[in-house]
């Protein structure tokens, strides 16, 4: 690996690291920061990328020290070298990081603000800290891994939209806030800790897994989809008990979650669930699976 300040050749795989120099006084619109926008740019071009700080248009270089390093060849699915982007620092005031990213890898060593990974279509986004609200909102593909907690509305739909997350995977190691996966239509969200109220609100499809304690009214207004509660919680009266059984797809999902870094004890794979159908107010084709026993 060699350090370079002027790597502009697209054929050379690089790792670009942005070190936070100063915390902005107000929230920053940072959708310009993702692996695709920094690929094939030299240090100066990256520093010139725009950032809206409040109502003032500023530069990435005003807040970050940029390092560009050549690395071992690392190619994504499209076989075109793409920069690996690292961000270091407390980015709680930076909104829309990784917004709409479609490929590549982004690692954030610190906490991030709201809308991180929203509209993401592919690639991997790892957050080694806390995530703000609207994490992965309207996400369509790729993977978000939060090694901490996430705020409200992870994987949810923005106000006025019928459909939230439509694909991909969000894994939150600790807790999640309210309205987790609200109106999601596809994809998987797994929460290692507790989650807030209204998890899976208005779900049309997809899967939400909560390992810790669920909040109130999980699955309210869900039409289809699956909420898996690994700890029992109070369910709405519009969910009807069907049976106790071991759905096979859980074994596949268990394997997938393990592979993606969501820690579950080995005996959880053999688990039985109580199945509840609901929300009866919306046709009742959704389901909540509540962990029943470890066989």
């Amino acid at each position, binding site marked *: 690996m060699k350090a370079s300040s002027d790597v502009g050749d697209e054929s050379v795989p690089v790792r670009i690291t942005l070190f936070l120099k100063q915390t902005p006084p107000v929230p920053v619109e940072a959708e310009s920061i993702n692996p695709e926008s920094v690929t094939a740019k030299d240090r100066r071009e990256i520093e010139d990328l725009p950032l809206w700080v409040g109502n003032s248009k500023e530069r990435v270089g005003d807040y970050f020290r940029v390092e560009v390093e050549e690395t071992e060849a690392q190619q994504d699915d499209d076989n075109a070298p793409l920069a690996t982007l690292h961000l270091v620092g407390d980015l709680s005031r930076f909104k829309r990081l990784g917004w709409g990213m479609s490929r590549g890898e982004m690692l954030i060593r610190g906490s991030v603000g709201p809308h991180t990974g929203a509209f993401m279509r592919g690639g991997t986004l790892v957050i080694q800290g806390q995530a703000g609200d609207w994490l992965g909102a309207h996400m369509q593909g790729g993977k978000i891994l939060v090694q901490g907690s996430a705020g409200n509305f992870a994987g949810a739909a923005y106000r006025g939209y019928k459909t939230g997350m439509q694909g991909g995977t969000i894994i939150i190691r600790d807790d999640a806030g309210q309205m987790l996966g609200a109106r999601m239509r596809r*994809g*998987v969200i797994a929460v290692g800790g507790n989650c807030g109220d209204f998890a899976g609100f208005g779900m049309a499809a997809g*899967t939400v897994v909560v390992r810790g304690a669920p909040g109130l009214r999980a699955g309210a207004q869900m039409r289809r989809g699956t909420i898996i509660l690994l700890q029992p919680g109070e369910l709405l009266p519009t969910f009807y008990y069907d049976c106790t059984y071991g*759905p*096979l*797809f859980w*074994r*596949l999902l268990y394997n997938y979650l393990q592979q993606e870094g969501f820690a579950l004890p080995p005996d959880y794979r053999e688990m039985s669930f109580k199945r509840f159908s609901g929300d009866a107010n919306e046709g009742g*084709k959704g*389901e909540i699976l509540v962990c029943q026993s470890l066989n």
Partner: protein
Amino acid sequence: MRLNGVTIEDTFAEAFTMYGARVTVTAVNEKWAGHAARAATGFATSIIGCGVEAGIEGPALSSPDGRPGIDCLFFTTSKEDMEKQLLNRIGQAVMTTPTAACYDGLVPDYGRQEQPAARLKIGGKLRFFGDGYQSSKVIDGRRFWRIPVMEGEFLVQEEFTVVKGVGGGNFLILAETAAAALAAAEAAVEAIHAVRGVILPFPGGVVRSGSQVGSRYKFLKASTNVAFCPTLRGIAAQTMLPPGVNAVLEIVIDGLTPEAVAEAMRVGIRAACLEGVRGISAGNYGGRLGKHLFPLRQILQ
């Protein structure tokens, strides 16, 4: 060429391109996975009369749900036939078996070929059995259908991969007695079972009624292999039986790749060269019809 005192005739097996699919059947234990696999691959000896050639390949290379599994191979002459056969056989044999589930088995070791010949929507059509209560899950990029059944749920993958394979690899065991031919055939089958990517579609892996193309009867596409029938040695227009041969058995091999078929023939022929076997031959059509030729002496070297 002689192997263990057995003459290896200077001839070749002629095989054809067929479409192949691997179906992985899992169940709560090997017993029920076996029930499902045997039912799904039943009555699938010859494309001529069954519409498909199928068999059990062996224990599953990869069991997506972690339960005991069995890999089955299916071969047809067209993609349309494959879809029809898989729909019928998975729907009637696997879905009906308690605890069974069904996955596309070609996924784990696929990638050797550039593109699959097709991806057939099998679970995607069987789902309608759920009468509107079916649901799907996309896990790791693959869609699985959950069909409610009286026991719980039948889980089946939406798409099954179809590749171009090889059908009709074969060799003939020419023996002094029927008992010697059977012993040699059983030894060959036992040896071939260790080879992955192939099946022996006939009962016990052995055929006694090998066929020739055509018949004196217009309504029949194939008829008994006159040249290898010991009872016709004296009256047939042409016999291929060396002196002293009183029984012939055939081993037919279908495989996902020509290499797998050749390997199966190699180990099978070697195992079949036992006492009482006079020669090993193979069925062909002069090399004019089949794309894949397997010269016996060459594959044994």
